[in-house]
C-alpha cells in the first residue's frame, strides 16, 4: 500500500478475505434464522484461507514483517549481516520451492491416481491445491524484493554511521 500503489497480491488477498467473511456471515445467518446449513461454505472458506495465507506470507516478505530473532543479526558487521540476509532469503525461497515441488506432485497424483474429491462441493481436490503454486509466485517475487530492500537498508545504515 506504500505510495498508494495498488499491489495485485494485496488486492487479491483483500478480496478473498472479504469474500471469506461475507460467506461465513451469510452462512451463520442462514443457519440461525432459516436453519439451512451450507457445508460448502466451510469448504470454500478454509481453502480461501490457505490461499490468503500464501499471499500474506508473500506480502510480509517484502515488508520484512515476519517474526524473527534479530538481536544477534542487528549487531553483526556489514558483510556478515548481508550474508545472513542472503542466507535467510535463500532458505525461505528453498523452503517454498520444496513445498511447491510436492504440491505439483500432489496435483499429478490426484489427477492420475487418487481423483480425490472435496468434501462438500465434490470438486477435484487439486483445484484447491493449485492455488498454492499459483500464489507462491508472489512469495518468490517478494523474497527477492525484500532481500533487495534489506541489502539497501544495510548499506544505508553503514553510511549513516560513517557520517556521524
Amino acid at each position: 500500500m506504500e505510495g498508494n500503489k495498488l499491489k495485485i497480491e494485496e488486492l487479491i488477498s483483500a478480496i478473498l478475505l472479504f469474500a471469506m467473511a461475507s460467506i461465513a456471515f451469510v452462512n451463520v445467518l442462514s443457519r440461525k434464522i432459516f436453519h439451512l446449513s451450507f457445508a460448502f461454505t466451510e469448504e470454500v472458506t478454509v481453502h480461501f484461507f490457505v490461499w490468503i495465507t500464501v499471499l500474506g506470507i508473500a506480502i510480509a516478505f517484502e515488508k520484512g514483517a515476519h517474526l524473527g530473532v534479530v538481536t544477534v543479526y542487528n549487531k553483526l558487521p556489514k558483510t556478515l549481516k548481508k550474508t545472513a540476509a542472503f542466507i535467510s532469503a535463500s532458505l525461505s525461497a528453498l523452503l517454498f520451492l520444496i513445498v511447491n515441488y510436492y504440491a505439483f506432485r500432489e496435483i499429478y497424483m490426484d489427477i492420475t491416481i487418487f481423483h480425490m474429491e472435496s468434501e462438500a462441493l465434490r470438486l477435484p481436490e487439486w483445484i484447491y491445491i493449485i492455488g498454492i503454486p499459483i500464489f507462491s509466485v508472489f512469495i518468490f517475487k517478494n523474497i527477492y524484493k525484500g532481500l533487495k530492500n534489506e541489502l539497501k537498508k544495510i548499506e544505508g545504515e553503514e553510511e549513516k554511521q560513517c557520517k556521524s
Partner: protein
Amino acid sequence: MQILTLFGIFALLLLIGVPIGTSVGFAAVFSIWKYGLGVTMISRNFASGIAKFPLIAIPFFVLAGILMQKAKLAEKISNLATIIVGRATGGLAIAGVLTCLFWGAVSGSGPATTAAVGLTIIPVMIYQKYDKNFSAATIAAASGLAIIIPPSIAFIVYGNVTGVSVGALFLGGILPGIIIGLFLIVAAYFVCKKRNFRGIKKRGTLKEILIATKDAFWALLAPVIILGGIYAGIATPTEAAVFAVFYSIFVGFFVYRTLTLKGLYEALVGAVITSSVAMFVVTFATQFSIASAILGVIDIMADGIISIAKTPIAVLLLANVAIIIAGMFLDAISITYVFMPIFMPILAYYNIDLLFFGIIFVVALAIGQITPPVAVNLYVAANLVKSTLDKVAKEVWIYVIAVIAGLIFLTFFPQISLYIPVASGLYIP
C-alpha cells in the same frame, strides 16, 4: 543425532535472524526429507495445517480489531478510562491498563493491542510528564492481557493443538485476565507513587463520565457481542469473529462514520498480513511437531520431566519456568506447537485439567511478549515512543514480576480459571 539436526537447524537459523516460519519450516522439512519421515505429505500437510475451520477465527478477529481501531473505538475507551481514574496517582498508567483490559476483549493479539491502545494513551501520558519508556512498558505489559482476555489467538492455537474447546478456553480467560490486570495496576501504582507520576489535574464530573460512557457505548458493546454469543451458546468462536467483523464495519461506517472504503481495504490487507505471519509459523510448526514426534523427542522429554517433577504442582511450576524461559526467545505459536505435544502426556499422567493448564500456559506466553530479546509488544511500544527495545525493557521488569506473581496465584487456584466455563455449562473438567 537426528533430534540434534532438527533442533540444531532451528536454533541456528533463529540465531542469524531468519524468520521463525522459515527456521521452523526448514528444520522440519529438511529432517522429514533427510530421515524419510514422509516427504510426500509436505505440501498436503502445509495446506492441512491451515485449512481448519476454527483457525479462521484468527484473520476475522484480527480484522475486527483493526476495523475497530480505524473506527477510533480505542480512543473512546481510553478517554472514558482516563476520566474515571485519571486523577489518581499513576492515574494514566492505571487508565492504560484498564483500556488494555477492555481492548483485550476486542482484540486477540498482544502487539495489535499495544499499537491500538498505545497510539491513544501514550501521547497523553508523555504530555502529563510520565517517563516515555515507562509509558511504553506499561502499555506493552498490559497488552499481554489481550491474549488472556478473550478473544485470543493464543487460545485458538492452544485449542487447535490440544482439542480443548476454544469457546470454553475463551470463557476461562476472563477472570484470570482481570486478576492479572489487577496485579499490573498494583505494580503501576507503586512505580508511579515512587517516581511521582501524577494524574491529570481535573476531576471528571458525573456528567463528563456519562457523556464519555455514551460516546464509548458502541465500543463497550463490542465485547458483549463477541463473548455474549459464545456464552449463550449461540455462536462458536469463529462465528463470533465473523459477527465482530460486520459489527465493526457497521459501527465504523454508520455510527461513527470514521471508516472509509480505503480504510476497509487497508484493514483487510493488514489483517491478511498479521494472520499470515501467524499462520506461517502455525503450519510449519505443525510439521516440526510431526518430525519431533517421529524422531522420539516427545517421549524422551515427557519421560524426563515425569522423572524430575513428581507431583502435579511441581509439573505446573516446572512448566511455568520452561514457558517463561522459552518465551524470551520464541513467539507464542511456536512455543505452543513445540511444547504442548511434550506436556500433553505428562498432564494426562498427572490428571491435570487441559483447560486449566491452557490458561496458565497463555498467561506465561503473555509474559514472553514483554521479555527481551524477542518481545513483540515491547518492540511495537518502543517504536511508538521512538525509543529502543533495551530502554523500554529496563522499565518493564516490574510488570514481569507482577504477572509472574499473578501466574503463581492462578497456578495454585485452578478453580479461578475453571469457574466461568463450568458455571456456564460449557465445560466439564
